[in-house]
């Protein structure tokens, strides 16, 4: 484990201690204790895609960026990967050759074979041939892709393509590895292979940033940023985010009453009902990260609806 608690948004981080057990590799030695963003905003025309987002990824750790479609995950990762300059704020990242970035779209060449994709990447980064061969073989074996090395990348299944993309991004031992939704739409078996690769990269000292819509994956991360509609909903360790959830949650086997309905959602065949004031009637539920994130999004939706004058309900006690 790395030392010290993760630092929540806006704080200053001393160098050295943040790196923990695994010092930064590549060109990061002597760099900051973290990579990330400080109050970064991105505008696409009139739309504010990211609003003052501060995020820190530390060497040797997996950091997760979660949120739904349109939350701003890809925009943040494009900034970290160097594919997009922010409208304002600061991005702290290593030199380009020390960043491994897998965009949400492709990241591989469909007309090259698996082996050619990796050889091309290694050559572009001037990785010594022997090192490239050894690392390629090890990563392909870990991902269960050894038998596919001579297949065209464009002919691979979605899961295999994603695994190849992650291997290509981590081939050069980057100090910062930025992976945009490597596991979305990927079957559970390939998902496990991908997480094995991700864990390996972090264990080898990279600061790994993974965007995902799977909250169970985010639970594995040391540090989590939850985005909603371009701004930060929560940040910290999974435990910190759960502990910071406002109000209380209860679980019900029967559908909620009309009064509870706006505060209720379905999960695993049962109902969760949020009481913002914390005076829940009935057995309280022990929330997990998925509950905490759902409460965050729901709270925002309710507040936005009221601000828009559409509200049919008054806020409950304790609701912000």
């Amino acid at each position, binding site marked *: *484990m790395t030392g010290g608690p993760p630092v929540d948004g806006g704080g200053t981080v001393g160098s050295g201690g943040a790196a923990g*057990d*695994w010092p930064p590799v590549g060109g990061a030695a002597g760099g900051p204790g973290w990579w990330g963003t400080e109050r970064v905003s991105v505008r696409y025309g009139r739309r504010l895609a990211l609003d003052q987002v501060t995020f820190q990824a530390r060497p*040797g750790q997996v950091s997760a960026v979660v*949120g*739904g*479609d*349109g*939350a701003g995950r890809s925009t943040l990762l494009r900034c970290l990967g160097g594919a997009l300059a922010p409208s304002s704020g600061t991005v702290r990242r290593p030199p380009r050759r020390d960043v491994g970035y897998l965009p949400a779209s492709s990241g591989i060449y469909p007309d090259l074979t698996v082996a050619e994709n990796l050889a091309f990447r290694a050559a572009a980064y001037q990785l010594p041939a022997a090192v490239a061969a050894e690392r390629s073989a090890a990563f392909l074996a870990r991902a269960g892709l050894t038998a596919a090395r001579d297949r065209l990348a464009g002919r691979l*299944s*979605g*899961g295999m393509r994603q695994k190849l993309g992650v291997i290509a991004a981590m081939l050069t031992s980057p100090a910062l590895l930025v992976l945009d*939704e490597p596991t*979305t*739409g*990927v*079957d*559970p*078996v*390939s*998902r*496990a292979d991908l*997480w*094995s690769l991700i*864990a*390996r990269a*972090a*264990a080898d000292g990279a600061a790994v940033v993974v965007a995902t*819509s*799977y*909250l*169970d994956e985010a*639970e*594995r991360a*040391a540090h989590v940023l939850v985005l*909603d509609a371009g701004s930060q909903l929560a940040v910290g360790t*999974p435990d910190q985010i759960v502990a910071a959830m406002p109000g209380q949650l209860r679980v019900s086997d029967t559908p909620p009453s009309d009064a509870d*309905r*706006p*505060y209720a*959602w*379905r*999960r*695993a*065949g049962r109902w969760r009902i949020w009481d913002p004031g914390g005076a829940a009637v009935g057995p309280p539920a022990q929330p997990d990260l*998925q509950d905490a*994130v*759902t409460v965050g*999004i*729901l709270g925002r*939706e*309710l507040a*936005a*609806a*009221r601000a*828009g004058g*559409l*509200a*049919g*309900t008054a806020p409950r006690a304790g609701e912000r």
Partner: protein
Amino acid sequence: MGGQPGVPGALAECVAVSRRFGGFTAVDRVDLAIGPGEVVGLLGANGAGKTTLIRMLLGLLPASAGQVRLFGGPPSRPARRRLGYVPQGLGLYDDLTPAENLAFTAAVFGTGRAAAGGGPSAGGRPGADGRPSADGAEVGPAGAVREYGRELVGDLPLGVQRRVAFAAALQHHPDLLILDEPTSGVDPLARARLWETIAAAAAAGAGVLVTTHYLDEAEECGRLVIMADGRVVAEGSAAEITGGRRVSVVEAGSWAAALDALEAAGLPAALAGRTLRVPGAGPAEVARALGAVPARVSEAPATLEERFFELTLPAAQ
């Protein structure tokens, strides 16, 4: 098995169904039945045969052997009218508005209704109507159609597109819903809302067959069918499938060192939070593999995901 119908009252049924492509058997002697009001989850890795099976149920692909029945007969065109289908790619027209998409689908299904607002639900059948949420809008699929009525589907966020696809599939009040990864890539609240729609359809009497890669969603399904290499390898509730299996759990100061030691011993481990979970090896064996790495080893019940790997991985290798 021959021509004997296996399950009385089944909406859709496969009896010893196989499908071969040349020398490759994509679906291998599968039995499956979906009854009214039932939510059946179809799980499996990519290439397990789920999509081929769905294509046969939809009548898009003939079976090489065995029988496929939809509402008691072959999957004919009239039978397909009683079916609602949301494909993985959603099947919407990007250049039409949500309302135009719905009107077009309604015309195809011969329901003859210009469903500009999704239309009211009728006759107790699951419709596209939603319930009011706190903002007075609707959280259900039809709300999306009303809210974004004038924009082109291609310009809408993915979560909204999914709600439109649901509205299109539900507007003719189908008896059977077939949903191929309906919740991929949306936030947890939006996912919960889609499952509320699915559960409401089932409560109103529709049968539902749903594929998902989120194994935590499997709890929403009354029954699970797990496929690997074209065959059904397990069937039952999540609890039945998980059974009493256990895994070893490793808490180590440095999970990287523990991971290395376990890998060196040939024990595949998965990272869960800051702990490592090792299926298929008891605590004693795991402790031996860890050797000098300081760690605490305990045991825990296997998750559905871990049981899933146990069931499907031997087949994949």
